[in-house]
C-alpha cells in the first residue's frame, strides 16, 4: 500500500493542502504591483453588509462588466457590522490607491456620524466615486387590512396614537427616518419596531406580527400580491408599481429611498477616482445592466463623482435639518 517514506510524507502533504486552501481564501486580494497604469491588479469591492442583500446583488451584477472594462479581477467581499459603520470606519484608514472600493449607502453614511459617537468616520471622508441606484421606500399594509389609502392609515394614527405597529429595518435607518417624517408631516403617531434587516422585517410583516411595513422597492415588488402598497417615496410613480400613488400625490410632501454608490479612501488620487468613475459609468450606461436592475425593482442612476458629492451635501443638510426638527439630535 503506502511505503514507509510515503507514510511519513502523507501528513506533510495533507497539511500543505489544508494550508493552501486556508490561505487562498484570504489571499484573494494580496500581492502588490507598481503603479504604472491603474489598475494592474485585483480590486477589492467591499460591501459593508451581509451577502444576499441589495448592495451585494448589485455588486455581483456589476462585477463581470467592471472586470471587462478595467481588465483586472474585481473581488466582492463583505464586512458587515454596526449597520455598515464598521466597514466605513475601516475605509477611512485604508490605502487610497483605488484597489479598495466600498459600497456607499445613503442615508446611512449621513445619519450614523450624526447620531452616534465613536462611529469612526465622517461622511465627507468617504470619497464619492459614483452613484448607480436607488430603492425607493414604500409603505404597505396587509392584503386584508381595513386601511385602503395612506389617508386611512394616517387618520387612524392621528386618532389612536401609537396603536399601530410599523416594522422596518434598523434604528436611525432610512426606514426609520421615513416613518418619522411621515408622522411629523401628518401629525400621526405609530409604534416603530426595528428589525435587524430587510428580510426579517418582511418575514415579520408577512406573518401578521406588525400592521404596517416600511420596505424597499425590490421587496415590495417581490411580495406585492400579499399586501396593499399605500404609498411610494418617489417624485413620480415607480415604474414597476404604476398603480401605487406617491406620498406627494397624496398631499404628504416627502420622498424616501436608499441610494447606493461606491466610495474610496479619502486620500485616493483624483485620476484614479476618474478611472473608476468612468468604469462605473460604462456599466450603468449598459442597456443589459439597466434592464436587469429595473426588473429587480431598482431605479438606476448615472451620477458621477462631482454630482454624487453635491448630492451628498444636499442630503446632509436635508437630513440634519429633519433630525433636528424631529428632536433626534
Amino acid at each position: 500500500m503506502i511505503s514507509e517514506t510515503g507514510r511519513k510524507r502523507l501528513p506533510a502533504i495533507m497539511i500543505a493542502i489544508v494550508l493552501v486552501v486556508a490561505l487562498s481564501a484570504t489571499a484573494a486580494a494580496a500581492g502588490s504591483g507598481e503603479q504604472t497604469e491603474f489598475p494592474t491588479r485585483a480590486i477589492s469591492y467591499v460591501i459593508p453588509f451581509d451577502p444576499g442583500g441589495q448592495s451585494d446583488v448589485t455588486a455581483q451584477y456589476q462585477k463581470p462588466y467592471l472586470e471587462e472594462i478595467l481588465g483586472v479581477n474585481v473581488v466582492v467581499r463583505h464586512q458587515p457590522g454596526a449597520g455598515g459603520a464598521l466597514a466605513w470606519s475601516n475605509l477611512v484608514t485604508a490605502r487610497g490607491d483605488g484597489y479598495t472600493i466600498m459600497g456607499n449607502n445613503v442615508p446611512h453614511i449621513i445619519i450614523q456620524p450624526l447620531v452616534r459617537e465613536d462611529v469612526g468616520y465622517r461622511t465627507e471622508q468617504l470619497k464619492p466615486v459614483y452613484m448607480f441606484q436607488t430603492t425607493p421606500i414604500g409603505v404597505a399594509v396587509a392584503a386584508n387590512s381595513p386601511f385602503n389609502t395612506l389617508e386611512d392609515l394616517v387618520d387612524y394614527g392621528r386618532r389612536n396614537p401609537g396603536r399601530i405597529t410599523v416594522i422596518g429595518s434598523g434604528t436611525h435607518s432610512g426606514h426609520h427616518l421615513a416613518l418619522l417624517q411621515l408622522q411629523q408631516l401628518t401629525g400621526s403617531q405609530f409604534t416603530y419596531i426595528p428589525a435587524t434587516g430587510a428580510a426579517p422585517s418582511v418575514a415579520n410583516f408577512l406573518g401578521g406580527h406588525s400592521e404596517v411595513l416600511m420596505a424597499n422597492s425590490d421587496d415590495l415588488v417581490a411580495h406585492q400580491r400579499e399586501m396593499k402598497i399605500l404609498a411610494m417615496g418617489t417624485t413620480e410613480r415607480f415604474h414597476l408599481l404604476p398603480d401605487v400613488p406617491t406620498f406627494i400625490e397624496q398631499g404628504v410632501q416627502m420622498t424616501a429611498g436608499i441610494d447606493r454608490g461606491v466610495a474610496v479612501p479619502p486620500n485616493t488620487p483624483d485620476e484614479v477616482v476618474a478611472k473608476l468613475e468612468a468604469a462605473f459609468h460604462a456599466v450603468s450606461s449598459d442597456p443589459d445592466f439597466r434592464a436587469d436592475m429595473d426588473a429587480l425593482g431598482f431605479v438606476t442612476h448615472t451620477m458621477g463623482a462631482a454630482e454624487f458629492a453635491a448630492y451628498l451635501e444636499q442630503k446632509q443638510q436635508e437630513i440634519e435639518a429633519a433630525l433636528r426638527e424631529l428632536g433626534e439630535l
Partner: protein
Amino acid sequence: MSGILTSALAGVLEPVSLLLIVFGTSAGIVVGALPGLTATMAIALLVPFTFGMSPIHGLVLLGAIFSGAIYGGSFSAILINTPGTPSAIATTFDGYPMAQKGEAYRAIVTATLASVFGGLVGVGFLIFLSPPLARASLRFGPPEYFWLAMFGLTIIAAVSPRSTLKGLVGGGIGLLIATVGIAPIEGSVRYNFGTVSLQGGISLIPALIGFFCIPEVFRMVEESRQSGTVIPYKRQRRMVLRVFHALLRRPWLMIRSSLLGTLIGIIPGAGGNIAGLVSYNEAVRESKNKDRFGKGAMEGVAAAETANNASVAGALIPMLTLGVPGAPPAAVLFGALLLQGMRPGAELFTVHARITYAFLFSLILANVAMLPLGLLLGKAIARLMHKVRIQTMAPLIVFLSMIGSYSIYNNIADIYVMVATGLLAVMLRKAGFLPGPIVLGLILSPIAEQGLMQSILMGRARGSLFMVFFGRPISLILIALTLLSIVTPIIVQWRSRAETVHHGPVHHGPVPVVREGDAEGDDL
C-alpha cells in the same frame, strides 16, 4: 408536471452536474472542516463563479457546497474540539471525548451516517411539504423568538455535565459578551469602551474559535509529555456496518433529530447551530443514562449531526417558497438565485420549475455523495491526526485559527477578538467553566433581546403585554417545553435520591468506557 420532473432529473444526472456535485460536496467538507471558513463564506466565495454557469449547474454546485460544509464542520469538532462551522457546536460535546478515547473514526462514521440521514429527511420535507411549512414558519413573531431563546437557554443543563451552576454562570458570560456593540433596538453602542472596531460587537466566528480552539491547544501542550500525539487512534474493522446497525436500533433518536433539525431550520433566524443544540438537549433528556453524555456518547454525535444537516433543507424552505431566507447561507443562495434572474417565491415552482426541481434533486445526490467522500476523508484525517505530533499540531491549529478569524470579514480586529476570547476561555476552563454554555449564551443573546424588546413594543401598542407574551399558541408550546426542560432534571434527581433512600446507593461511579468491539453493545 411529470415532464418537468423528468427533465429536471436529466439535468442533474448529466456528467457535468454530477461532477459539480462531487466537487462541491468535497470542497464543502474541506471548507467546513476548517474553523472560521463557514458554509456562508464558501457559498459567497463561489457565487461569482456560478454567475457564468447555467442556472442548474450554478445552483447544483452551491447546494452541494452548503450540504458538504455543514457536515464538514463535524470533523474539526470531533478531532480538535473546535466546531468547523457554528452548526457543529453540539457535535463537540461528545464527538471530541470519543476521539480522546481513540474512537475518532467511529465518531466520524457516526457523524457521516447521521448527516446523510438528516440531510435526506430534510430534503424530503423540502420537496413534499414546502408551502405549508413555509407559511407556518411565518407564525414565528417576536414573542416566539423570545421564548425560543428561553427554551434554548435551558439547554445549558444538558451541556454542562459537571456543574449546572457553573453552566449557568457560563451562559451568563455568553449573554453579556453578546451585548457588546450596537443595541438592536434603540441603536446606541454598548460596552465598546470608545473603540471603533467594537461597535459591531464581538463576531461569533472568532469568538467560537477562541472559546473552543485555544483552550484545547493549551491542554494539548500541557499534556504533550504523556501522549505526544493529539488523539489516539485504534484500528477498527467493519466500523461503518457496526455504526449503521447501532443507529438502526435507535430509530426514534434519528427521526426526532431530523424532524427537530428541519423544523428549526425553517424558522427564519434560527439555523443549524440551534438545531444541533436543541436536538442534543432532547437526546440527553430522553436518555435513561444521562451520565454518559459529554463523555463520548455516540448518541450525542448522532443527534447533533442529524439535526444540523436536516436544517440545511429546512433553511431553504422559506427562502425558496416565500423569498424569506431562513439562515445566513440561505441568504447568500437567495442572492445567487436573483443573479440567475430567478426571484425566490411562488414563481420558482412554476416559471422556473425545471431548475428548481433539478436543484432539489441535486441536494439528494449531494447528501448521498457525502457518504463515500466523508468516510474516505474521515479515515484519512483521523489517521493523520494520530500521526502528527503535538509540536507540529499546536502551532498549526493556532495559525489556522488566526487565518480563519481574519478571513471571515477580512478584519484584523477579529484576530484580536479571537485571541482575547481564547485567553479568557483558558482561564475560565481552569476554573471549571466549559465553552458550550458560554457560546450558547452568545448565540441566544441577540435573539432573546430582540424578541423581548420587539414584544414589549408590540405589547405597548396593543395595550396588553400579557397577551403578547402569554396569549399566543406557539409561545405557549415553547413555554411548556421550557418548563419541561427545567423541571425534568429536578424530578430525575429527586427520584434517584428517593431510590437511594429506599434501595441503597445507585450506581454513581464512572460509567464503564465502551471498548472497541462492543460497538454493538448498549452504548447508543
